[in-house]
């Protein structure tokens, strides 16, 4: 399947795909009116979601990033991906702002009514001082240059500079805002962040049994950790950084050694 680059989408799930590969989707039921499909071989109803790393093209889906192809089965009851979703799991360290992502930004400047934040992308993001919960023209948030802010992207495309807000659509903070003074910030790859954000992540569960700590994960690869002492914070930082290359047995051994001390 390496040569031509055209293959059926279902066949390629779980395999490595390269940019330029074309994935052919099964024919839609409308095209074949005489045949009523029965049973599990039915073509998926609803919209097929084309996730990161893929683009629609005439023949089907065009791969734009190299990685493993993943597929989610058609779920029940008409969500956004009622017809199933395809995406590419790729590994990268450089972040590209995406609308809706929650990231950790570093304040670099105050320019009048907006703060300029560095989020690791090609442009600095802007954050209005009114975009915090309970902020008014008189009641400004206490944000200094060099502070860490956890917010989400309101606008993020390649034509405009990204805009961030620290509240959700109803005006509530829901965990976003200025991150406290202590603690430590470090950077990991984007793939590790997605793995840590997965529900019921083993790493986080095992770490929480070690010491109590506060953790903020930004989709731009930045992690903020705070534990009681400097030593504990450093241990958590080192374990999270090492999780990239450790298998789960090695991680369990390392944690067992630490909790034994």
């Amino acid at each position: 399947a390496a040569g031509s680059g055209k293959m059926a989408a279902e066949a390629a799930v779980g395999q490595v795909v390269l940019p330029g590969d074309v994935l052919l989707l099964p024919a839609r039921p409308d095209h074949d009116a005489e045949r009523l499909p029965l049973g599990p071989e039915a073509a998926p109803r609803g919209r097929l979601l084309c996730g990161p790393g893929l683009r629609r093209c005439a023949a089907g889906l065009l791969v734009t990033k190299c990685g493993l192809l993943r597929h989610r089965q058609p779920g029940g009851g008409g969500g956004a991906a009622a017809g199933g979703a395809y995406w590419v799991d790729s590994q990268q360290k450089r972040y590209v702002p995406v609308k809706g992502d929650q990231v950790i930004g570093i304040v670099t400047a105050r320019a009048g009514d907006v703060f300029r934040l560095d989020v690791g992308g090609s442009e600095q993001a802007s954050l209005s001082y009114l975009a915090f919960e309970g902020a008014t023209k008189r009641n400004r948030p206490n944000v200094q240059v060099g502070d860490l802010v956890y917010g989400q992207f309101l606008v993020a495309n390649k034509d405009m500079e990204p805009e961030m807000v620290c509240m959700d659509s109803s005006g509530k903070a829901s965990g976003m805002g200025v991150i406290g003074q202590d603690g430590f910030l470090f950077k990991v790859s984007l793939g590790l962040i997605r793995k840590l954000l997965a529900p019921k992540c083993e790493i986080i569960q095992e770490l929480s049994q070690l010491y109590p700590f506060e953790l903020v994960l930004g989709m731009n690869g930045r992690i903020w950790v705070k534990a009681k002492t400097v030593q504990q914070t450093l241990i958590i930082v080192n374990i999270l950084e090492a999780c990239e290359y450790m298998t789960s047995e090695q991680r369990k051994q390392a944690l067992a050694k630490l909790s034994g001390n």
Partner: protein
Amino acid sequence: MRETPLSNCERRFLLRAVREGKRLDGRQCYDYRNVRISFGPDRGCCVVELGRTRVLGQVSCELVPPKPNRATEGILFFNLELSPMAAPGFEPGRQSELLVKLNRLIERCLRNSKCIDTESLCVVAGEKVWQIRVDLHLLNHDGNIIDAASIAAIVALCHFRRPDVSVQGEEVTVYSPEERDPVPLSIHHMPVCVSFAFFQQGTYLLVDPSEREERVMDGLLVIAMNKHREICTIQSSGGIMLVMDQVLRCSKITAVKVAEITELIQKALENDQKVRKEGGKFGFAESIPNQKITAFKMESAAVDTNNVEEQAEEIITKADPPSEVFATPILHAPGTAQIGEGIGNSWEDLEESEREEEVEEEGESEAATSECQRMETEDTSTISKAKDEPIVLSDSEEEEVVILEPQEVPNKTRTQTTSKQENTSKKTFNKRRRKKRAAR
């Protein structure tokens, strides 16, 4: 690109950690990171890794006319480049302050200390001398570029071999590597730089600062020394006031570190020499380790496949041999026909097969494939049917197999292909067998 700014909480945390004597990677204050030296296939090419800081060094030589005021000496040229690969803040065209400072330091350390005998590089006095050019490229910036660069430079120079030259009167013959073995450069001693980072006006001192520590330090002291405890270069930057006994203490630490590093360099050079002599494989491909990313790796589930083989064997021994294939089509109704009755159900007990479905896919497919292989040896004519059968049952999402009696089919207005008909007939057959067994 712009350099990522340092946030206040990082700065505060790092200074607090330094005050408590803790470093980010768990080192002690006077500990160096791991130094790894690997050589490339060419002579004079090496990569030095100091923790995650990586520097590539390459030495090359050329015959040139000498400098007018130094007619009998060869020329040494050092060039350190900060590639944008190393850190986002480095841009290729810009001549930054850091770059100038590093280049000057390397030159002072290696040229002014006369570690290379330049007189030996002279071929014809006043006309031809060897110009030795050392190119250093920073591949990754994780702090302490100067130490890694100085180690890379001296290692590359020791590793390098220049072509042999003979002078007969007016004639100069440069031998190619095939004609005569290339000659090593004559190196008197190996100077190595050691960096010290100072915090809080000289109160706290860290050896070999990492990139984060470099961002928050007050000042930097670099001492270049060789293993004979001779100081080649000493430079203090950052404007900190240093007391005499601090500097003396640093020089004592340097002596210890340089001895260790020089030993490491000697060992690396010897290893490489040995490998080349024995004809073994050498080069970067052998020495740089692979790092596998486990972020997307799915851990293999622990599947108990102990019983599966036994069960599979049982089933096969109890199975009836498959019946013969009927070639003539049987017409049930207009528009539907059946070829053959499908193979007999070799899954003795359907409940047993459902239990097997609870076992992981691997176990099932193993049993299926092993069964398939055995079926092949038994009856080659029914190979395709044997492969079809296990799949029919496992793919079905329905708990119960739908009974499709042949008479009912024409009610559903559709045309069936023969394979579909065979499937339904198999299902019918299985259901009939189940009913038969239930009736017993």
